[in-house]
């Protein structure tokens, strides 16, 4: 039983939960979104600041369980400093890992601390927790890109 729990609650996850990276809402930002998990009530408010095609900052305020909190921290740390394309590719990898029901082998070079979430994929009820902030980030980024396109048009 403890083994099962341990596969979900990796030390890395508990560390990010207790000491989340990049937490707080910061300026400047081009888009802010608010996402909730309707079934459990977890919430995240998330801001994205792009500089050119680079993710310059992701800042957030979130309430939720260890998995969702840790995932937000890991996500922010992974995407900040990457280009949007690179970050989207990481997002895609993370999504594939989460939806793989435990059959997908994570690539540590891409996902870094994110590989700690491999165990979450075996707990269908928790997959949504791990994805909440990723979805929010993708949504916010899409908003910025759309606005940029509009401005240019």
């Amino acid at each position, binding site marked *: 039983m403890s083994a099962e729990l341990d596969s979900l609650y990796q030390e890395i996850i508990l560390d990010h939960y207790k000491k989340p990276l990049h937490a707080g809402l910061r300026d400047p930002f081009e888009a802010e979104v608010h996402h909730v998990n*309707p079934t459990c009530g977890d919430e995240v408010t998330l801001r994205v600041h792009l500089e050119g095609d680079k993710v310059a900052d992701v800042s957030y305020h979130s309430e939720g369980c260890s998995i969702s909190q840790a995932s937000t921290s890991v996500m922010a740390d992974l995407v900040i400093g990457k280009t949007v394309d690179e970050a989207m590719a990481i997002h895609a990898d993370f999504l594939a890992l989460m939806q793989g029901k435990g059959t997908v082998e994570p690539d540590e070079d891409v996902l870094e601390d994110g590989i700690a979430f491999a165990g979450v994929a075996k707990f269908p009820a928790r997959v949504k927790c791990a994805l909440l902030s990723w979805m929010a980030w993708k949504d916010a980024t899409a908003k910025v890109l759309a606005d940029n396109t509009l401005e240019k048009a």
Partner: protein
Amino acid sequence: MGLEGLLPELEIIRKDFPILERTVAGGKRLVYLDSANTSQKPQVVIDTMVDHLENHNANIARAMHALGAESTEAFEGARDRVAAFLNAPSRDEVIFTKNASEALNLVASTLAFRGPLQLGEGDEILITEMEHHSNIVPWQMLAQRTGATLRWIGLTDDGRLDLSNLGELLNERTKVVAFTWVSNMLGTINPVSDLAARAKEVGALVVVDASQAAPQLPVDVVASGADFVVFTGHKVVGPTGIGVLWGHREVLDALPPFLGGGEMIATVTMAESTYAPIPHKFEAGTPPIVEAVGLGAAVDYLSAVGMDAIHRHEQTITRYALEGLASVPGTTVLGPLDAESRGGAISFEMQGVHPHDIAQVLDTQGIAVRAGHHCAKPAHARFGVQSSTRMSSYLYTRPDEIDALVEALNYTRAYFKVG
């Protein structure tokens, strides 16, 4: 019994349906010819429901434990099965309702609410004279609530849609066209994709009532060209308490929610609420969980037998029944007389004997048929009859059951001393 076109495994299929073993009327074998009213249930559907209730019962989505996960998987798995059964582009487009009637009311009610699709004064709703009351009354209510006008496609004397004035009936004011795929009274199979295409030309929303189609022929929502397709669980060998609304994602997204409550929200505050994306937006409260699970087993069962094979079986039985009924003096069938253009429900009149009395005599012979207006009063009025007797077959119907019907009809005539 060697009719060409019957299901090859008919005897095995019959064994799947426990109720067919029953005797009625003091020891007579049950001859169930009322499947258009509701279908019988195969053992696998019953067993799947029992297994769910005995071993996996929990509320869905909201429950974060083993049973909750199992129940959620079973329920959402049923949505996948139904999506596959309908060839729906996305599982999210499959909404579970309590029956076909609620599904039709969901569409009709929300079209009265504020939103991009709201109807108003001057708009027209087009339905047909062969609809089931469940595809009439919601539109009458919508017309009343919004000031829109309800218009009707009439019927030809042989019970088909009279499309001669369709050019006038369909116009730029037409916002909704709602019609049945297969008539539950006349048996007529309508040209769904043609009609849908004509309706789309004027930009109308197309609502197809597949309550009688889904049980007996392949229903492909994409090929149908409809915006909404509706059917009901209990007619496709599934349980009562569940119906299905399939809708195009964009249209479902554009409709405001119908019922409010648990599970259909994104967030609720005292000031306001926001709503979850489809399908949950339209599924307020605890859904029919064990019913969805049963329905999933039901559509899998039908698919395993094969919808094409079931359709062929129904047409074979229908042809045989039309011949049989023609042999009973004083009997007139309502609706098309060729089996190819109809489904497995045949309504008829018998001169000198009222439908109730026919059904009553048949019942004493163990034969179950329906008598009355079959929730299609306007169609009955169109043919100048107040009620009729209806026999309706299904995948478990055997030709000798039609023989029994014909014999009992002759007996009825003798009993009431007509002819």
